[in-house]
């Protein structure tokens, strides 16, 4: 899952990036409010962590601006401003969650997962598609009752398909959702991962839509 991190403090930013990576997120890090607004508007991130005291543009202003333009990326505000008024203002400006520094890494990761889950309309923490079940928090996958071992990328790819079940995703969209900036992505990386997923979970799970991309269809009930 790709996360946008907007934090101007070097030490905290590098910690957040490393910590979220440990929890399986791909992290894009921006250091000012203008870049945060620009990246939020691309809609490429599953979720965003936003500091409020950002240079060039306050985080609150960036958030209000992208919400006004219709961007729906879930946003967790992470800030030192703990006054009730600031919390209310933050949530009313379009934040989906409001955390006061310092924050526990595990809690932050859990909240990010919860936001992503809710954004896709699922209250259940586990995603199920046919006989495949995926637990984002535990990063585990089962086919029927059998646990399946997936690589980091394979898991992320399956998670993306299951989150957006029934939606046709292009190769570019999949790459954008999986890889942080600067990651080396070979041209056929997505194809290779899909091939492996089909091998491990059965061929019927992910269909190829010729000339467009791929889709994971819900089986008719």
């Amino acid at each position, binding site marked *: 899952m790709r996360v946008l991190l907007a934090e*101007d*403090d*070097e*030490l*905290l930013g*590098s*910690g*957040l990036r*490393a*910590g979220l990576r*440990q929890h399986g997120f791909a992290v894009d890090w921006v*250091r*000012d409010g203008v870049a945060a607004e620009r990246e939020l508007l691309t809609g490429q991130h599953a979720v965003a962590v936003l500091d409020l005291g950002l*240079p*060039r543009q306050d985080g609150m202003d960036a958030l209000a601006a992208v919400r006004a333009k219709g961007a729906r990326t879930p946003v967790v505000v992470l800030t*030192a*401003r*703990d006054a009730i008024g600031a919390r209310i203002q933050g949530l009313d400006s379009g934040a989906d969650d409001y955390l*006061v*520094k*310092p*924050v*526990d*890494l*595990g809690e932050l990761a859990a909240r990010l997962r919860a936001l992503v889950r809710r954004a896709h309309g699922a209250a259940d923490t586990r995603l199920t598609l046919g006989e495949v079940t995926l637990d984002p928090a535990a990063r585990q996958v089962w086919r029927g009752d059998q646990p399946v071992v997936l690589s980091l990328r394979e898991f992320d790819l399956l998670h993306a398909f299951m989150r957006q079940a029934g939606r046709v995703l292009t190769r570019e969209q999949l790459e954008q959702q999986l890889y942080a900036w600067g990651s080396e992505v070979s041209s056929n990386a997505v194809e290779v991962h899909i091939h492996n997923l089909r091998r491990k979970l059965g061929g019927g799970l992910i269909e190829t839509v010729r000339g467009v991309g791929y889709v994971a269809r819900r089986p008719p009930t």
Partner: protein
Amino acid sequence: MAARPLSLTRRLMAMVLGFVLAAWLVTALVAWFTTEHELSELLDAHLAQTTALLLASELDVPVEDDARPAPVLLRKYQSRVAFQIWRDGRLRARSTDAPEEPLAPAGVQGLSEQRLAGKRWRVFTAEQADARGSAITVHVAEQLSARRHVLLASLRGTLLPLLLVLPLLAVGVGWTVRRALRPLHALGHRVAARSPRALDALPQDGVPAEVQPLVHALNGLLGRVAEQVAGERRFTADAAHELRTPIAAIRMQAQVAQGATQDEERRAALDATIAGCDRATRLVDQLLQLARLEADAVDTQPAAGRDIPTDLTAVAARLVRELSDAARARGQQIRLECPPRPVDVPMSAALTAVLLRNLLDNALRYGPDGGTVAVQLLPAQATHGVRLCVEDAGPGLSDADLARLGERFFRVLGSGQSGSGLGWSIVRRLARLHALQLHIDRSPALGGLRVTVDWPRA
């Protein structure tokens, strides 16, 4: 025992009553002397008149009638008035209580004062020869005590009512004074009833003109206190807020180290944790410095008394030595130029070091790797004071940033440096406390920031 506070009521009453009493005494004295004078004249005239009357009647009396007592005419003052009629050295007639010897020695004419049988008399004497050639002498006398008696009685009549009025006057004055001071009491109650948090101005309406300056001064003080309290509250909030970020970073890096699967990742996270601790420590140090400076500012005259002249060259040399190691780690060097003799500034050594350290710290922090920081110490020609210049080769500051410099916690964004933005607040505060001139511009030699500090003449 504490001295009893001065009571305006008591003082006003004492003064008013004192003046009334003094005026009354003067009036009484003047009345005494005028009455005495007039009374003497009147009674003397009576003496003369009576003497003339007796003399005239004696001239007409036949010689055979011998000494006879005078008819009783005077009652109360009978014993105090007397007359004698002498004919050729013989007492012809006298009043009942008159003595047998002459009331006045021979040869005395007209008014005189005599002492007879222990009493003082006012005597009028007249002499004349009758148709038969006999010498007739008439004395009419009056005891002086009788006169004083009359005088006192008349004075009592006029002055006694005043004496009775005096206590009434005291009560009246007391009531008036207390009533006039009532707005002062009301003001006192209003101030006493205030909560310590209510720092808004006292209302000026209904306050008498005499108390207006006090209320005005009080409001000024309240304003300053409110400003200070707000400043402290803001400072605490800012400080807590500012400490959150390094603490969050430390916690995050520690958790990263905890969860790291590779040694390299763990080592990097632990290094970052330590860096975070250093930063938090520095921030706390600076906050404490600033808090101490604020506390000094609250003492009214902090700078004057405790200032010891400090040799700026010694402080600068020591700090340059201390900071050189850290500077070398980034390939930076500090160049110190100062005169070979001591340069004294009117500031304690500790505060001078704080000022210089913050300036040098900023210059090193924002200067590039391998850059130079120049410290120059020179006598300022114009002011006869001392001038200190610290220059760096950093990016300098935009005009907008220059304007915000010295706001607490303001730091130049995007500089990549993890300063707290407190160093400048400290420098500014010190400058204000010690009347130093601060000037910031672009360094002509190094291209970065140049900070000039001017001390006034020691």
